[in-house]
C-alpha cells in the first residue's frame, strides 16, 4: 500500500508552533510583508476568509486585514521537514519526499493495516512535532494522493480502486491529479466534464487529441497508476533549477530589469555549480502588470553552469518577449540537466578550462565569505531594490548597513 502524508498548512503551522502568540489566529506566510508579493501559505484559520496560496498579498489583506502576515523562512521549514522524513523511516525504509510538506510511504500491508499505521503516524506527528497531517492511502500513488484531498485537515482516507471510482467518477475532471485549468478546458471541448467521462472516453479519441498522454489520462481516471516509489536515499536528480522574484513595484526600467535578470542568472548558475549540474535549456518567465505570464526558452549547443552564458540567452529572450510595458515578476530557470562529472573530458582542454578554474576560485571565495562577497557588477543596478534574494543567497548581514528588504521571493 502507498500512504501520502500531507502536512496540514505546513509553513503556517510551523510558525504557529514556533510562536504561541500566533496559535488560533489567521496566519499568512509570504515574502516581505511590508512589500507586495503573493501568499505562500495560509493557516486553516485564514482560509475561511478566502485566502489561498498564490493569491496576491494585496488581495489577501483586503479579505483578512486582521491576519498575521509573517515572512516565510525556507531554512526553518526544510529543517523540520527533514526531521519528519527521518521519523517516517521508523515505519518503512521506502519514503519518497514529494515536496517539502508531502511524502509517499510504501509498505507491504493490507488496506486495513495501512489505515492503522496511518493513524499511528498522525498521532505521533501530533505528539512529537505538534503538527497536524492528513493521510491518503491506496494501492498506488495516484489513489493515495487523491484520497489525501478528500478530508482535511487531520483527515485519513483509505480507498480501493472501486471506492476511488465510486467517489471520483461523478466529480469534475479538474479533480483528477495532473489536470489543470487549461487541460480541463480542452477536455470539455471533447464533451468530457467528469472523471468518469474521461475513464469512459475512447482511447483513440484521447490519443488523437492529446498524443501519448491521452490514454494515460484515461488510465488515471480509472485509478490505475504504475509510477514507482523512489526512496529518497536512492536519490533522484532534479529536472530543473530556477529562481523567480516579484518586483517591489511594477516597472518598465530596462536597466533595472536587466539587473534583476543578471542576479537571477547568477543565483541559478551558482546553485547548478553547488549541486554539480550543468544545463542546456535556459528559460525566462516574465509576468506583466496584467498578470499575463510570458515564457520563452532556448536550448543551447553545450551544457553550461556559467551565469554569463545563462544571462546572454535570458537577455536575448527578454528582448523578444518584452514590449516595453511594466513588469511584475521575472524568473530564470535552467533545465535539461546533466551531472557535471558526466561532461566530456575533451571540454577540460578547451578554452573553457581557464574560465572554469577562475569560476572555481570565485566560488571558493563565496563559499568562504558568503554570497555577498562577490556579485556581478550589473546585478548591483538599483541595489536599494535588490537586497532580498531567495534562500538568502546574498547575506543579509553583508547588505544590512545600506539596504532594506524589498523584493519578495517566490521561488
Amino acid at each position: 500500500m502507498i500512504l501520502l502524508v500531507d502536512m496540514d498548512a505546513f509553513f503556517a503551522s510551523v510558525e504557529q508552533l514556533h510562536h504561541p502568540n500566533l496559535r488560533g489566529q489567521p496566519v499568512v506566510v509570504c515574502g516581505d510583508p511590508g512589500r507586495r508579493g503573493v501568499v505562500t501559505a495560509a493557516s486553516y484559520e485564514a482560509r475561511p476568509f478566502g485566502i489561498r496560496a498564490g493569491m496576491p498579498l494585496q488581495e489577501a489583506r483586503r479579505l483578512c486585514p486582521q491576519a498575521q502576515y509573517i515572512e516565510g523562512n525556507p531554512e526553518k521549514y526544510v529543517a523540520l521537514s527533514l526531521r519528519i522524513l527521518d521519523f517516517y523511516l521508523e515505519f518503512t525504509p521506502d519514503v519518497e519526499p514529494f515536496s517539502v510538506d508531502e511524502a509517499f510511504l510504501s509498505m507491504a500491508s493490507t488496506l486495513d493495516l495501512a489505515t492503522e499505521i496511518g493513524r499511528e503516524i498522525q498521532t505521533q506527528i501530533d505528539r512529537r512535532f505538534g503538527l497536524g497531517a492528513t493521510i491518503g492511502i491506496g494501492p498506488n500513488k495516484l489513489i493515495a494522493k487523491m484520497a489525501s484531498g478528500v478530508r482535511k485537515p487531520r483527515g485519513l482516507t483509505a480507498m480501493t480502486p472501486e471506492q476511488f471510482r465510486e467517489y471520483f467518477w461523478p466529480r469534475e475532471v479538474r479533480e483528477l491529479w495532473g489536470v489543470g485549468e487549461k487541460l480541463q478546458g480542452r477536455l470539455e471541448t471533447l464533451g468530457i466534464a467528469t472523471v468518469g467521462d474521461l475513464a469512459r472516453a475512447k482511447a483513440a479519441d484521447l490519443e488523437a487529441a492529446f498524443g501519448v498522454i491521452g490514454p494515460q489520462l484515461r488510465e488515471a481516471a480509472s485509478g490505475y497508476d504504475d509510477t514507482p516509489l523512489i526512496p529518497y536515499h536512492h536519490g533522484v536528480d532534479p529536472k530543473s533549477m530556477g529562481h523567480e522574484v516579484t518586483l517591489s513595484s511594477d516597472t518598465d526600467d530596462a536597466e533595472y530589469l536587466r539587473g534583476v535578470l543578471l542576479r537571477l542568472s547568477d543565483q541559478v548558475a551558482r546553485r547548478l555549480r553547488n549541486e554539480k549540474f550543468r544545463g542546456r535549456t535556459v528559460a525566462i518567465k516574465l509576468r506583466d502588470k496584467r498578470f499575463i505570464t510570458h515564457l520563452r526558452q532556448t536550448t543551447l549547443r553545450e551544457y553550461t553552469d556559467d551565469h554569463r552564458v545563462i544571462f546572454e540567452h535570458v537577455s536575448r529572450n527578454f528582448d523578444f518577449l518584452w514590449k516595453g510595458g511594466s513588469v511584475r515578476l521575472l524568473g530564470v530557470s535552467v533545465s535539461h540537466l546533466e551531472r557535471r562529472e558526466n561532461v566530456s573530458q575533451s571540454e577540460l582542454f578547451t578554452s573553457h578550462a581557464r574560465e572554469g578554474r577562475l569560476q572555481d576560485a570565485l566560488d571558493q571565495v563565496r563559499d568562504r565569505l558568503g554570497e555577498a562577497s562577490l556579485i556581478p557588477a550589473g546585478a548591483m543596478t538599483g541595489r536599494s531594490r535588490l537586497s532580498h534574494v531567495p534562500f538568502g543567497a546574498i547575506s543579509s548581514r553583508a547588505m544590512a548597513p545600506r539596504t532594506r528588504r524589498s523584493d519578495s521571493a517566490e521561488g
Partner: protein
Amino acid sequence: MFETLNQPVDVLTVFLDGRVRPLRFRWKGRVIRVKKVTGEWSRREGSHRLAYFSIESHGSESYELCYDPRGPSWMLCKAWST
C-alpha cells in the same frame, strides 16, 4: 506582530552534547528566561553555519535568537510585540 531587531544581546548559554542552547538573555534592561525552545534551524553564511532558535519566554512572549560561532556572539533577530 513581529518586530525585526537584529540586535546583539548577551545570552546565558549552555553547551551540551555538542549543541548550543540559550537559557536566558538580557534585553531592554530585563532578563528574559527561556521557557521552551519551540524551533531550531540553521543557515549557512560563507563557511560558517549560524544556529537559529525560536523561543518562548516565561512571560509567554516569543523571540528568535541567532548564535554566530564566529564571535561567538548572539543576536536577537525578532521579537513579538502586541
